[in-house]
């Protein structure tokens, strides 16, 4: 008899533990969405990627459509080559425009894709040629300061 009450308690304990694990997996963590089953690779070359990191999101119209899989430096053109894993459900026109944005003022950087009007679609392994680099805050600030300085000198 005491054996069965023991079994009940251990069963209760294990069930509670598994419930906690499920809670962590499903409610706390994002089990889906991050791991896309089927993807294809695209490449994009940027003059400057700012703070973009591997595993960062690729968004189109604000929706996550892929991940940054790899970032390399091309020693011949002195550009950054960013490989993008795009969800196989989505295709984009040949003249898609890729730019690097920041989410929020200080948030992570992501690749934004803006589709063009071309009939032909980008296939696996293609390269996106129309790109816009990340906005580097220091450059923006120094540009602003130079403009201000130039304005100040004009009346003299």
């Amino acid at each position: 008899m005491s054996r069965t009450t023991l079994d009940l308690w251990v069963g209760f304990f294990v069930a509670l533990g598994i419930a906690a694990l499920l809670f962590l997996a499903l409610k706390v963590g994002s089990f889906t969405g991050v791991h896309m089953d089927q993807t294809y690779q695209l490449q994009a070359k940027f003059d400057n990627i700012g703070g973009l990191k591997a595993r960062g999101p690729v968004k189109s119209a604000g929706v996550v459509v892929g991940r940054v899989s790899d970032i390399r430096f091309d020693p011949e053109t002195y550009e950054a080559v960013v490989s993008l894993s795009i969800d196989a459900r989505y295709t984009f026109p040949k003249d898609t425009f890729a730019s690097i944005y920041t989410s929020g003022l200080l948030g992570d950087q992501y690749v934004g894709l803006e589709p063009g009007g071309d009939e032909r679609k980008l296939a696996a392994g293609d390269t996106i040629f129309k790109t816009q680099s990340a906005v580097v805050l220091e450059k923006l600030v120094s540009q602003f300061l130079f403009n201000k300085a130039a304005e100040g000198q004009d009346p003299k």
Partner: protein
Amino acid sequence: MADLLEPLCRLGSQVVERIWRLGYASRFFVAVLLNSGAALRRYPLTLREIWFSGVLSLIIILVSGLFVGLVLGMQGYEILQRYGSAEQLGTMVALSLLRELGPVVAALLFASRAGSAITAEIGLMKATEQLKAMDMMAVDPVARVVVPRFWGGVISMPLLAAMFSSMGIFGGWLIGVVVIGVDDGSFWSQMQSAVDFRYDVWNGILKSLVFGVAVSLIAVFEGYDSAPTAEGVSRAITRTVVTSALAILALDFVLTSFMFRGTS
């Protein structure tokens, strides 16, 4: 001259003693693993140990998890609202619990609640010559006494850590959303977009599994190796708690340094 040499000799014998014990502990660990088949065949024994070290630790784990979560919620809100990002509270609470606090604090509590009890039990069995009696009856005390306690601890630890983290997140939610009034939707959605199952949840479970092995091994070894006197048992219990705490924190540093390396 002899007076000067004596402390050196004592230091040397201490070092040799430690290394000796380490080697003995390693051989003991291998013996436990080799005898683990017995624990599966005699699973009611293991079940009893899960009850003993898991179920009986439930209350302390759940209550401390809740309090840790409440404190994290309050402190996190206080810091985050300075930067105007109080809706990141869920992310902060969940990540700090899943990655560090859940496994580490649960393991520390487990070591002092269940580890010390295991050491005391085995140590007393040794002091009252029960282990010797078993040996006389051709019952291997490692297979009969040590292995079920070891596996009971190893199985309980990840489950307890998961419960600790869940309870802590609930506590953070209670303070953040119910008491302070952070938006419920953004609390959960920010958390879900920041927490990755494999990277955060799975690594946390892996950590608690490693801690479970370490704490259970230390507890059963200290009990088995204790001097068979009342004083020896009490010293063994102290050593269990101290060594476990040090092992948990050191292992946590090692595991963190190769699990959570920034990807870029």
